[in-house]
């Protein structure tokens, strides 16, 4: 059965990710822990974008905004001496949901290229806002005094613990995403992407559902941002730069839109290639560019779509 190959691939992939810390320890290469943690954080962002881009058909070119707001929530609270992780992450999620509600409410009424431009414009505004916040390092950014603290529960200073926290959140996002896109809610946004006039004609008003999906994706993006700033231990407006939005979108397209697992694969391939090629030559982008072009041209359904039964969900 085709979807079985797909399920096996997902399980094997997750097992591989879970096995990174012991392998990195055995090889005495802690760097890999760092690399794959970064991959998983971007995978969370890419999965959340896939919810609205792949399933909802909303080409949001501003997903870095939620990454940024999540990161700033943690960084700014930390700057003011609040290191409590529960509070920091709750603020990160709440703020990115509110932001998604605002951006979504305005942009979802638009369509096509206008939608792309509006989401891009909002994110650029936030980017410049970040630059103008001199108290928090402005253009240069600032160092995080401490990672988020979960006293009595977790210690993120321990690289392995932090790794598995990110892993658990990634798995949770995949499970949640899978439930959402197959529940009634997900069927509505997918139907509206497939054929909006038909969806309206049978009685669905897509707007509130699309907005809901936008807010859920924003929340996941905010979590990714909170994780990212803990990972880098450095807060910078670069998190919100439009090229970052492009990178996340590329992970989704490269891996396979509307598949949830595809974006995880896309994040891994993109960041691993970046790592391998940049160690090899400083002109690594000359090689990466054509590769990505070929991948998109010849694997139209994404790398995950090359698997039997790995194509997008309807």
């Amino acid at each position, binding site marked *: 059965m085709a979807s079985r190959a797909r399920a096996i691939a997902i399980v094997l992939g997750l097992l591989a990710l879970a096995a990174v810390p012991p392998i990195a320890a055995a090889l005495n290469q802690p760097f890999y822990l760092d690399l794959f943690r970064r991959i998983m954080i971007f995978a969370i962002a890419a999965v959340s974008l896939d919810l609205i881009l792949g399933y909802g058909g909303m080409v949001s070119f501003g997903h870095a905004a939620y990454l940024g707001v999540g990161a700033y929530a943690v960084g700014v609270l930390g700057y003011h001496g609040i290191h409590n992780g529960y509070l920091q992450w709750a603020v990160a999620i709440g703020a990115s949901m509110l932001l998604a509600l605002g951006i979504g409410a305005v942009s979802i009424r638009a369509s096509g290229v206008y939608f792309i431009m509006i989401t891009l414009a909002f994110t650029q505004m936030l980017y410049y806002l970040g630059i103008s916040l001199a108290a928090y390092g402005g253009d240069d950014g600032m160092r995080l005094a401490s990672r988020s603290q979960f006293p009595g529960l977790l210690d993120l200073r321990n690289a392995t613990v932090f790794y598995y926290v990110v892993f658990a959140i990634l798995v949770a996002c995949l499970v949640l995403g899978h*439930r959402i896109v197959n529940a009634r809610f997900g*069927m*509505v946004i*997918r139907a509206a992407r497939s054929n909006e*006039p038909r969806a*309206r*004609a049978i009685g*669905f008003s897509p707007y509130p559902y699309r907005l809901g999906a936008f807010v859920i994706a924003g929340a996941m993006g905010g979590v990714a941002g909170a994780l990212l700033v803990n990972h880098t231990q450095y807060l910078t407006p670069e998190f919100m730069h439009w090229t970052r939005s492009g990178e996340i979108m590329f992970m989704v397209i490269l891996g396979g839109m509307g598949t949830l697992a595809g974006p995880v694969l896309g994040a891994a391939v993109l960041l691993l290639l970046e790592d391998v090629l940049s160690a090899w030559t400083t002109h690594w982008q000359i090689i990466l560019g054509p590769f990505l072009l070929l991948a998109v041209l010849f694997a139209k359904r994404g790398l995950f779509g090359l698997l039997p039964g790995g194509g997008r969900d309807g």
Partner: protein
Amino acid sequence: MAEPLLEIRGLTKRFGALTATDRIDLDVRDGETHAIIGPNGAGKTTLIGQLAGDLRPDAGTIRFAGHDVTGLGAPARARSGLARSFQITSIFREFSALDNVALAVQAHAGHSFRFWRPARREVALRDPARAMLERVGLGGRADVLAANLAHGEQRQLEIAMALATRPRLLLLDEPVAGMGADESQRMIRFLADLKGRQTIVLVEHDMDAVFTLADRVSVLVYGRIIATGTPEAIRENAEVRRAYLGEDALV
């Protein structure tokens, strides 16, 4: 007489200098099959767009089941009991036939802010959808991707979706367009069977279908209804002959 199910008064729609719908009055009685015919460019599509809620009229009112629905959009009208098929088949191509109909059931089963339970395992959505597919003769094709159905099957699927919403009024925009003779006959038989139990507005070019199915016919020419009556009366109407049927069509 009881109030008509659909009551259109003074409906007008202009596109620049062109008046596509020109002060149309039209009643559709509960239970009847009412055909709207007219030559190309007569404004049939514009009229349907306004009935379905996709186009906003410049003037006039549309009352449906006792309520003024002129200001309602397409989703709200659908929820109030108006279902339609499109002139060009409109289905969810990436979904199975069963999914398509189950979505139509879902659209009329309360809000869809449900995030956890798999919709494809909800008996309350799947069973009525399956029964409806059986009814239109697609029972054996439930799990086929809608895009892979034959053209005639896709049209049947569209009707199944419309009926699955349990509409008060079924709005059919050229249901036999682009069909082969066999498919077309099958569709006409299906609609003939439905007729009487379901109020239908039928916009159709195919005179065979119109004169077989319609209880009453309205003739639309240049955005105006020039005649409404039984098929026989329309056939005999001199103005209709001149304006529309043409000398060749006289039978």
